[in-house]
């Protein structure tokens, strides 16, 4: 406590001497000169820069473009970190570049996991590494997941090499109603979180329904201990947040409040809401709460009962981030079914495959395959290339990065996986993975297999995993 008091004191002092706040924020000016409730635009900025790549083409592969398009015997050309051409066999490519034969292989945009705790619940999972839940109060909108990220989590490299994951959102845990801000990362090894941070990606706000908050705080003898308590604390918090946001919008003097800044940004549409919520009835309550306070839920995460209200989710434009087959591990997951994803997809609602798991993130393509198979068996015949949207453009949109990545369109980031077979087959693995055009995993080259600081010098370092 003593340690943290000093910076808070300094902040308060700075706030006291600052001039009146401008309603409009200046990206470059430091916050302290702007007024008591003015905040820095981007205080922990990304330092990520694309690693050097060579101009590369892949010929002859089946391409899923991530937006539902499919090109058989296709050609894709990557240069300067971008997709520079994509098309059929006759697509022209320069003569003097590296060309990979993709015959029998598949090319997709890199997998995007919208729900991960890599870095904030890293391996090894010892108590000292438990940095995902600030489970000391039900409303911790002021914490930022990025400040818990340990870049040396070996899980990042497994997600890259085995899962073809090129971007991922790291969320705070679900102990709290308002868990804090999420961060989106490029899946590149780095010394710092900033070195992984996805340039320009908006923050998310993690919220949680249901059993976790009421259990965690109910067991401490405090609110919330019920689902109605969850909603009451949520609503009381939004009332405060709207008040804060109104004052901030007109430049009215008020002390900085990190939690309120996050929530005000949600109310102004700058931060996207990612709401852990399992049950259909609770999701309906949350949708109404969004209307009550003037914000929109971008995606319900876990949502094992999304299939029961697929129409409601579609009509309200809310995405569902789902598992392939998880069910039953707790009461609110009791009604999970394998057809959840295809049923939500068929209703016309946005559907995403997510992991929430350091093993599952290595096989999101297989989770999608489970959903595909279950759907086809009940007559929902979704083509492979459409299903890939669950792993590409849909999560990219829900994370606010679809202008930059999430599909293989000319001008977008060259985040690309070359798979050694159909990626919906269990027998398929990434052959090569490019991030911003840099080859960062090559199954044929043991030196292109990242080894974290934690692993280096330990048994098994550099082994094929």
């Amino acid at each position, binding site marked *: 406590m003593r340690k943290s008091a000093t910076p808070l004191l300094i902040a308060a002092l700075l706030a006291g001497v600052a001039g009146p706040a401008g309603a409009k924020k200046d990206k470059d000016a430091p916050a302290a000169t702007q007024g008591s409730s003015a905040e820095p635009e981007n205080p922990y900025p990304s330092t990520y820069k694309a690693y050097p790549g060579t101009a590369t083409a892949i010929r002859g592969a089946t391409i899923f473009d991530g937006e539902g398009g499919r090109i058989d015997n296709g050609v894709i050309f990557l240069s300067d970190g971008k997709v520079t051409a994509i098309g059929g066999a006759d697509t022209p490519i320069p003569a003097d570049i590296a060309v990979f034969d993709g015959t029998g292989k598949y090319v997709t945009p890199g997998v995007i996991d919208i729900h991960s705790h890599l870095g904030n619940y890293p391996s090894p999972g*010892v108590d000292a590494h438990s940095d995902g839940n600030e489970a000391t109060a039900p409303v911790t909108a002021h914490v930022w997941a990025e400040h818990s990220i340990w870049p040396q989590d070996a899980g990042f490299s497994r997600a890259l090499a085995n899962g073809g994951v090129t971007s991922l959102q790291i969320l705070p845990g679900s102990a709290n109603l308002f868990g804090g801000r999420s961060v989106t990362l490029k899946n590149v090894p780095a010394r710092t979180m900033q070195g992984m941070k996805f340039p320009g990606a908006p923050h998310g706000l993690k919220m949680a329904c249901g059993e976790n908050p009421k259990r965690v705080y109910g067991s401490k003898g405090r609110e919330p201990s019920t689902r109605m308590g969850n909603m009451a604390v949520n609503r009381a918090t939004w009332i405060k947040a709207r008040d804060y946001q109104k004052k901030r919008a007109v430049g009215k003097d008020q002390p900085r409040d990190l939690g309120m800044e996050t929530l005000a940004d949600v109310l102004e549409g700058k931060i996207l809401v990612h709401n852990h919520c399992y049950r259909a009835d609770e999701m309906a309550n949350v949708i109404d709460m969004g209307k009550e306070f003037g914000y929109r839920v971008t995606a319900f995460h876990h949502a094992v009962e999304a*299939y029961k209200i697929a129409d409601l989710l579609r009509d309200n434009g809310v995405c569902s981030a789902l598992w392939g087959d998880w069910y039953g591990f707790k009461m609110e997951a009791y009604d999970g079914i394998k057809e959840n994803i295809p049923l939500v997809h068929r209703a016309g609602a946005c559907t995403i495959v997510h992991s929430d798991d350091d093993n599952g993130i290595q096989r999101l393509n297989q989770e999608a395959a489970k959903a595909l198979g279950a759907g086809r068996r009940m007559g929902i015949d979704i083509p492979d290339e459409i299903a890939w949207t669950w792993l590409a453009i849909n999560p990219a949109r829900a994370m606010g990065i679809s202008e930059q990545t999430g599909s293989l369109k000319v001008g977008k980031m060259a985040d690309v996986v070359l798979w050694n077979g159909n990626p919906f087959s269990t027998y398929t693995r990434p052959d090569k993975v490019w991030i911003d055009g840099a080859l960062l995993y090559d199954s044929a080259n043991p030196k292109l297999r990242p080894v974290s600081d934690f692993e280096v010098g330990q048994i098994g370092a550099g082994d094929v995993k």
Partner: protein
Amino acid sequence: MSDQNHPLPPFALSLSKGLAERSRSHFAARSGRFRLPPVRTVLAGLLFAISTPAFAQSLAITGATLAIGDGSEPIRNGTVVITAGKVTAAGAGIAIPPGTKTIDVAGKWVTPGLVSGFSRVGLVEVPAVNETNDASARSPFSAAIDVAPAINPLANPVAISRTAGITRAVVVPSTGTGIFAGQGAVVDLGADMNPITKPRAFQYVEMGEEGAKDAGGSRPAAILIFKTMLREAQEFAKAPASYDGRSKDALLNRIDAEALVPVVTGAMPLMVHVESGRDILAVLALRQDFPALKLILAGAAEGWMVAPQIAAAKVPVIAGGLDDLPSSFEKLAATQSNVGRMVKAGVAVSMGLMDRDEGLQLRLATQQAGNIVALNKVPGATGLSWGQALRTISSAPAEAMGLGDRIGSLKAGRAGDVVLWDGDPLEMTSAPLAVWIDGIAQPLDNRQTKLRDRYATPEEGALPKAYAW
């Protein structure tokens, strides 16, 4: 993918062609509001065609892509004959006894019913709901605890697993008091009230990081407790009447001491959970003090590092399968190649669920096995052939339990546990079309299929959803 369209076999189409075609054309029209014909209608039709009524009768399945489960590779145009609940013949060119009901499956895959090498199925309904979780207890007893009477054949995960082709499972208790958890069982997942294949099939003990914790905080404490308890069991065996078990020095009460007698004599296998290479060697060394111990290693994420020693000790391993993270300090060298490397070194390896959802997700067996096959295409990795991978989820766990002559493969004399699949069983898009246990055709619906059918369209109909059942 090997089978994108998953056509139903001819005998199913003949019964339900109209329904199936109508559902596809409706979807093509993207109407979104129609009601699909319930999938159960199709499946029920299939089962009706295969085996009516549902009791064991002679049956021949022909034209199968047939996997025996013994490590051999699948064969084309294979036949399985089941008589009186048992496999009487399987392979190519099998003569079918006259009068046997015969099903031609037209190239579809047929395997033995799958066996989960490590699970808590039937002990758990909802893991986080304590009242439904019988995996462990803070009890005055430990080694004497016997899971068999508590197995609930009506637990929903039993039916869900059966529907996915799992027909038998090793059920493992979890420690509550001390390092011994009690006696596990082998069960079948049939839709009946008699789930036990073999009660008291093994004793379970923790000896790695978890064992250290259960022993009070250290590995040496766990080893000392282990040795002391086994010596007390020996004392009990020598003179049961004079063993008190209530003195200050005794670690074991009479009941637990008695339960450990078959362990120390080797009459009952001892399943030991360890992960690291050094812990595995420490466990193998226990046989210097207790030569009769019949060890089974569970976990063994670093087994590949000491695979020659495990092989030489002739100790079977039930591995977690896809561990590849240093998720704890006892798994620093975890790699998905673990299973392949151990098999290559001559270890008998099975797979099961070690870390989570052991009561629920037995169906992940096919994903584990398929991913081990995938490693064959990864330079530097060690995978298994398809047939070897299937063996890790069929005959290998059966043999580890001493039941290789009864279950786990389609060899003559084994139980008539057979699964007919709509595609390659190790692909995630595939699912069983029919499951037999002891020759009895099993229902393929469950709570999840009922929910699926109820919400095939989300909107309420003329009456609320609660009337759709």
